[in-house]
């Protein structure tokens, strides 16, 4: 790429080499990266917790613990961004300035700008959401225009944190820093948090009873391959997709194990099911299966032409996911899954007696209808993967 190196840049690098580089913790990882992943983790945990809150208690306020987790995550992200923006724009650190980009006269790392933008979007969504409640009623849908704005903001915070880590990681690699390994782990963790965020977005389409329809696979195909491909492309890592899928799986299983430990009482009616403890979300989708296969595939095909790689990714993702999730759904419908680990015996308070029977949505997709649905899912997955491949390849070179 064409560029010119300024004298200031040379000075900055010289100082960097002589004075210990960026603000760093003992491991050499900048402290704000730790805070960044903490921030996006809190937001995602808050989301899972809030979902459980609505299934168990129903009624909420601005001050519920779940909301507090989301808001504290947002505050931490805001703190990091404000610190980096002020330090870089107005501070005297040439090192920080040299590793920043400029937006409307302000300087900060690219990820900080994106995260700050996401934070502002989240803040903007609050009065919009309040108006929405007043105009059309309290939340009956997860996905509404103001919630979409909020979720988009949350995603931008998460992607901002990912970019912040990635640019630091790339610089650390070039500098031969001992913090590279830790940063790589942070990068994969941040990617996993984004997968959680994507899966939360579509949670209402993923009921166990719908897993013998093609729709859940189309919806997952839209939001997951983009992240798997992006993570694999942006930084060389043997198990990028697997690691991200594992993070998602671990958090959702942890929610099943932990949330029911806490008592809860429905505050909304009608209460068709006697909830006494927090109700977790369903067992996570088996994303880990296609993730492993894709990671093995990417070792050979990482630099393949984008459209070929996208096509392969789409077909493999859909095929492997269906191959594992379809029979697994049968298991989830059996009494063998009614235990503390798989958690299919947890129902929200509004579950009608007819909802308690473990039955698939009727009629299930079969024959040509199913085939057409899954082909569509593979096509959607491929488009999603293509977006991830292009984004990831661009992100390979991010330094700021």
């Amino acid at each position, binding site marked *: 790429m064409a560029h010119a190196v300024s004298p200031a840049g040379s000075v900055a690098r010289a100082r960097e080499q002589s004075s210990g580089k960026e603000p760093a913790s003992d491991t050499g990882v900048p402290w704000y990266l730790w805070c960044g992943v903490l921030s996006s983790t809190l937001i995602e945990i808050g989301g899972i917790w809030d979902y459980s809150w609505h299934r168990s208690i129903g009624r909420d306020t601005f001050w519920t613990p779940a909301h507090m987790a989301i808001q504290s995550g947002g505050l931490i992200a805001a703190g990091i961004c404000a610190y980096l923006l002020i330090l870089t724009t107005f501070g005297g650190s040439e090192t920080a300035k040299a590793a920043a980009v400029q937006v409307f006269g302000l300087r900060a790392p690219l990820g900080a700008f994106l995260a700050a*933008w996401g934070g502002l979007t989240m803040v903007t969504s609050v009065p919009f959401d309040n108006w929405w409640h007043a105009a059309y009623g309290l939340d009956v849908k997860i996905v509404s225009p103001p919630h979409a704005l909020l979720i988009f903001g949350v995603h931008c915070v998460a992607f901002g944190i990912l970019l912040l880590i990635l640019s630091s990681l790339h610089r650390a690699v070039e500098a031969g820093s001992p913090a590279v390994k830790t940063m790589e782990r942070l990068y994969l963790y941040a990617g996993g948090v984004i997968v959680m965020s994507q899966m939360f977005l579509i949670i209402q389409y993923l009921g166990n009873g719908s897993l013998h329809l093609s729709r859940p696979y189309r919806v997952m195909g839209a939001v997951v391959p983009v992240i798997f491909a992006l993570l694999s492309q942006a930084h060389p890592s043997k198990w990028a997709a697997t690691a991200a899928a594992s993070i998602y799986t671990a958090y959702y299983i942890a929610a099943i194990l932990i949330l029911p430990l806490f008592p809860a009482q429905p505050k909304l009616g009608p209460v068709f099911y006697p909830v006494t403890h927090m109700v977790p979300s369903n067992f996570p989708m088996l994303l880990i299966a296609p993730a492993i296969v894709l990671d093995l595939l990417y070792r050979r095909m990482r630099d393949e032409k984008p459209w070929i790689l996208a096509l392969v990714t789409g077909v493999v993702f859909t095929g492997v996911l269906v191959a594992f999730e379809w029979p697994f759904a049968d298991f989830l419908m059996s009494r063998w899954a009614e235990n503390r680990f798989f958690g299919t015996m947890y129902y929200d308070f509004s579950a009608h007696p007819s909802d308690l029977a473990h039955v698939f949505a009727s009629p299930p997709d079969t024959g040509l209808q199913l085939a057409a649905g899954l082909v569509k899912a593979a096509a959607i997955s491929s488009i999603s993967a293509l977006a991830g491949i292009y984004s990831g390849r661009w992100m390979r070179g991010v330094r700021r």
Partner: protein
Amino acid sequence: MKPRRSCLLVLFVVLAASLSAHAHVGSKDVFEETSAGPYKLFVTIRPPVVIPGVASVDVRVSGAPVDQVQVTPLALTGVGSEHGPAPDTMKRSSIDPKFYTGSIWMMEAGSMQVRFNVSGADGKYTAAVPVAAQALTTLKMQRAFGAGLGVCGIILILGLGGIAAAAVREGKLPPGAMPAPALRRRGLVAGALTISFALLLVWGGDKWWNVEAASFATTVYKPLSVSAFLTGDNLEMLVGTHQSDHLGQSRSNDDFILDHGKVMHLYMVREPQLDVIYHLHPDFISAGDFRLKLPQMPPGEYKLYGDVVHANGFPETLVTTINVPPGMQGTPPQVDEAMGTPAPLSAGELGASYKLPDGYTMVWDKPATLTADTAYAFHFELLDPSGKPPAHMRTYLGMAGHAAFLKTDGTVFAHVHPSGSAAMAAVMLANNEGSTMAGSASQGMSGMAGMSMPVADTDLSSNAVEFPYGFPSPGRYRIFVQMKHDNTVETGTFDAIVK
């Protein structure tokens, strides 16, 4: 993009200019006096105008000392009525220990109830007040709010463009490197493309918003359609049905239950002077078909307010008009029909004492000032020609009195009883008193050969009656109050200027 959405976002909300209503017209709030064992409760429930929404609940207690009041919303009938959520404890006022406040989330539209658990020295008792929960309006955005959030939107879109431009221009440069002109140009293009894409998203969001708004609009309450036809003195009212995909919002025209002995309580008021009023009771002939032989009445344009209650306790006021031609030969009025002929509105405001045609007088203990959205217990007395309480006061349709509150611009109508503004049939369902409904409560009118059921009027010891009610908006109202002595139903009329 529509002007109201041109800025995507907004800051304040205003109610639509007028609200339609279910039980009554334009008068959604419930004012009810009820008892929970030895505890007396004056309840005010202000349902939300959108569902799901939050209703506020106020309770003033009297009678035996009360320690705690708990409140629970739940369905009035059906399986939902047996599965209420955990009750909330209402907050006792620190200034007035007999006044409690609380709020409840009403998650479903339809026939609901608010159940009160009252505990005190005399033990624990419950009472329930029915509430018709419906979305009543779509709120509009205020221009200033839209402008404020629109500015936020513009800043966000420009910011996103700036970030994209910076990402392409400098994102991949080594630290300290300056972007070459070619990179700067590419950055500008990236910024412009991002802004274009963001605008496309806003456009898509607006389309989505329209779909959501249209979906919500289908849930806004619309009363059953009704048409009235007059042939000679035969009045026929044809009532339609309302089908909805939304849970609990379909309404039939053949599931009406008796409300203090009548399928429909029909108020006919001559417009525009409100100078003739009739309280009549059409018969239910078949699904959606009500008929009545009208008494002889002065000619003119009449507005009809027909109060009915569905089997699930959901009340409705069906509104239509008819023109009564001059010289209509009427049928002699039935024993439980009542009428009044007050002075027209244009003659000026009526006072607190109303002279009745037979020399009796009805007196309103009128508050010095009347304000909208305030709960009152309006007190009326009937005096004989000598100014004393009548010797033989009797109930009228089983109650000490009936009152109809009409706003003179036609936007408010409420038929209120001494127990309050909730329909009596719904009150009885809520308090498990359906057995007194002549067997109709659970099955509606389908299959019932009869129409109205006779209600035995009994002697009363008092010549006074109170009606819990609150005016929903400022303006001029006319109040028609009916009380009975001997075999005569008196209709007193009063005017109120509400601030």
